[in-house]
């Protein structure tokens, strides 16, 4: 279906319009990518600030700063902001910037809709964050929104529901755009199995998004009607079941966590070969592994619900299916290591973050596998062990991959090299502090500290203090990151087109920064 494309917009040669309206009305994939990335960074700061409140309150036993109700609001909104406002938009931003270039196309396939996908988000998050100023405060039932608790919320409740609807609309449109772009905008000769892995992983991610975001929309709609229109989907008296919500939520929620990690796999699969100066090992098995992970992600959801009292057969099924995911994920890890093996490696900042990713994501994967063992999960569930697990896969997984890609591509985006020295500092500060932050949480969980509590018994004091100190250090390191990014945008050593010695792919054939219209003439694919 690849088409012969060369692009021009209807007034020919010149660049973007000027001023603020340029950003509001733009249809250019790079502009929109930039908007997404900036938005994600802002949200990461907002969500991070909430995490700092959490860590501050947990610094010592006893309630020092916030009221328990507010603490729960922090936990809930921290998660929603980080996931829907931080990681997902960051990946969509990367997709916007890089996909058209990587496949040799002129732009995204549906540019106007692309603009809308982005411009829904600021409004959605304004609504979500606006709930802090309403009677009853922000949602406080956890990001998993379990009824009946979530139905006890204040005036913010319907705003949160509709904010989630808007995020869903945005994601679905974004995903459709990705699929259409990949199917229709490839340069001649760019067959599917020649596409860079980042394109592949996003392709599969987009399908996951289309399949599960509407399900989340359905789930929150039922919450809304249960609260305001007398329905009883989640109430036993009417014949419903609170656990039904959990099934629907996790049917969305589990694929969602792979939505947050598959694009990361793609990024890592681009960076490691570059700095190992060696082609990616097992390209096609990477594609198949990604597809298997995506497929399996639909049949494992109840591993979040082992303690709700599922029938034995159900628990066994979901335990086995979940464990299976370790196999394709393992294939990916082994392939990355084989790519490094006998390479000629250098360790610039992107590579450091990529290696950090592989190691720490794997640690998070191991704890995930432990959680998958149902009888053991009866102990682990809803403790800090789970919190440690998902921050390892999310922060040192997804977020690390985003940072790796920023360092990897920012010379291309801005035309300026970032400061390698500062980048290395950022990496080491982050990596040390993030482990101080999240590793002790494994111990806390095993020793019996439940999650989502604002205060704890004194036996947990020491590790919580460590964790908080790590948290503050990690937070400051990210402020430092913002500084590095800012500095690079402002100026710096000029980047070459190739940027990295070992880099391969169409993006490196364009100038740094690339022209406003990427491939006006379709490139030739070898």
């Amino acid at each position, binding site marked *: 279906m690849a088409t012969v494309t060369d692009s021009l917009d209807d007034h020919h040669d010149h660049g973007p319009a000027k001023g603020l309206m340029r950003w509001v009305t733009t249809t250019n994939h790079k502009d929109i990518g930039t908007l997404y990335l900036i938005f994600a960074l802002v949200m990461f700061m907002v969500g991070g600030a909430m995490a700092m409140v959490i860590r501050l309150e947990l610094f010592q*036993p006893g309630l020092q700063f916030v009221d328990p109700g507010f603490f729960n609001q922090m936990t809930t909104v921290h998660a929603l902001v980080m996931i829907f406002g931080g990681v997902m938009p960051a990946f969509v931003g990367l997709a916007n910037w890089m996909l058209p270039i990587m496949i040799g196309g002129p732009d995204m396939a549906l540019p106007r809709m692309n603009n809308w996908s982005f411009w829904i988000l600021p409004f959605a998050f304004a609504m979500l964050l606006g709930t802090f100023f309403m009677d009853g405060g922000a949602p406080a039932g956890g990001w998993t929104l379990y009824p009946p608790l979530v139905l006890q919320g204040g005036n913010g409740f319907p705003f949160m529901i509709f904010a989630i609807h808007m995020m869903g609309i945005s994601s679905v449109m974004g995903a459709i755009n990705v699929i259409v772009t990949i199917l229709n905008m490839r340069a001649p000769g760019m067959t599917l199995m020649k596409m860079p892995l980042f394109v592949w992983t996003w392709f599969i991610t987009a399908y996951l998004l289309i399949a599960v975001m509407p399900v989340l929309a359905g789930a929150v709609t039922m919450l809304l009607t249960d609260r305001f229109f007398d329905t009883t989907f989640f109430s036993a008296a009417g014949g419903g079941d609170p656990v039904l919500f959990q099934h629907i939520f996790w049917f969305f929620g589990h694929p969602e966590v792979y939505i947050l990690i598959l694009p990361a796999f793609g990024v890592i699969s681009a960076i490691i070969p570059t700095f190992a100066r*060696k082609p990616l090992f097992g390209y096609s*098995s990477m594609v198949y592994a990604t597809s298997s992970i995506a497929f399996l992600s639909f049949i494992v959801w109840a591993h979040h619900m082992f303690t709700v009292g599922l029938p034995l057969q159900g628990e066994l099924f979901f*335990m086995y299916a979940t464990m*299976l995911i370790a196999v394709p994920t393992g294939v990916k890890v082994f392939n990355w290591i084989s790519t490094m093996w006998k390479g000629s490696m250098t360790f610039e900042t992107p590579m450091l973050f990529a290696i950090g990713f592989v190691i720490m994501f794997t*640690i998070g994967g191991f704890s995930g596998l432990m959680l998958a063992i149902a*009888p053991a999960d009866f102990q682990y569930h809803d403790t800090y062990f789970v919190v440690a697990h998902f921050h390892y896969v999310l922060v040192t997984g997804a977020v690390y991959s985003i940072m790796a890609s920023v360092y990897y591509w920012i010379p291309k985006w801005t035309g300026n090299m970032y400061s390698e020295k500062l980048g290395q500092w950022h990496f080491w500060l982050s990596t040390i502090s993030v482990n101080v932050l999240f590793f002790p949480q494994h111990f806390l969980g095993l020793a019996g500290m439940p999650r989502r509590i604002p205060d704890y018994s004194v036996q947990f004091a020491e590790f919580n203090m460590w964790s908080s100190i790590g948290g503050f250090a990690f937070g400051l390191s990210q402020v430092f990151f913002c500084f590095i990014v800012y500095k690079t945008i402002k100026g710096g050593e000029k980047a070459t087109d190739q940027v990295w010695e070992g880099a391969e792919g169409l993006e490196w054939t364009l100038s740094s920064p690339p022209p406003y219209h990427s491939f006006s003439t379709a490139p030739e694919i070898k």
Partner: protein
Amino acid sequence: MNKLKQLCAGGAALTFMSSIARADYGLNLPVGVTETSRQVYDLHMLILWVCVVIGVIVFGAMIYSMIYHRKSRGAVASQFHESMTAELVWTVIPFIILIVMAIPATTVLIDMHDSSEPDLQIKVTGYQWKWRYEYIGEDVDFFSTLDAASNEARRVGSDIDPATVDNYLLNVDKPLVIPVGKKVGFLLTASDVIHSWWVPDFGWKKDAIPGFINEAWVKVDEPGVYRGQCAELCGRDHGFMPIVVEVKSEADYATWLAEQKAGSTAEKTAVIEEIDPLELKNIGKKVYTANCVACHLQKGEGVAGIYPAITGSAIVTGDINQHVDLVMNGKPGTAMAAFKDQLSDTELAAIITYQRNSLGNKVGDAMQPIDIAALR
């Protein structure tokens, strides 16, 4: 720099192992006091070790390659990028490892599901934020709430050092008591939102879901006091609904049970006396602190939008019968629970009197226990 990099890469794997080395210091899962908890512990150690070993191999290979295959050492990149054999090996071997883990996991799971033929059964109901224990077939039924000392220390700005409180946040006013060596069945449910009943030493937790009953069981080997917490987010005070189980020898348990029964009969047949309204107000203050502050707050100001203020409330300052009705029967579908089963006649009368004449309200009337009894 080189050293530092290696250190960091290996550090993660090492710390993982040290978690086992220092298992005695409360870093690891408790071994627990039941057959089940020991099985779970063994399973946990098995999977942990498997992960550690795989981690050592995987990270080892990676670190080796990072040291020896770096450009600064003059490494030249070879260009291989495929090997069917390798791919097969690292698909099949993990698969086999997984099967090895799945077998014991399956056995343990099947054992845990067998809640048949318990020696006694206890119905456990989660409330916001307390637990209710009903001994099935015995006339014993009580609530268990965070103890007063912790409750006072945990307020924002209380200035009480938690370290000075005995079992801070892990103590209750009235623990659950069960006999040693007997299979005790639990029927778990909830009255408002989902809670989760968890005592780590027993090796499991299970959700208490409103409108449904989940079954679980435990057979404890050693007498002692075991502590746990609610493990499912259940609102403001989720962090403050601990569980304490006292496991007694069979004889002690029997004595305890008899006392409880006697107590509840005595309560039922006791003559209800008229109480001085001032005295009622004093009792009421305690009841309020124990049961109502969580939502309506210390000064009765409530939380706008979710928990109405008691101060100046139309119901509290209005018709007393409506006030009593609301507190006794709650308001279905909201967080306001029915307190008629949770509080005694005296306590109910006291709380009503207190609310009407304190917290900024000055209605002037009072409620007597005998009137409450008449309403039951």
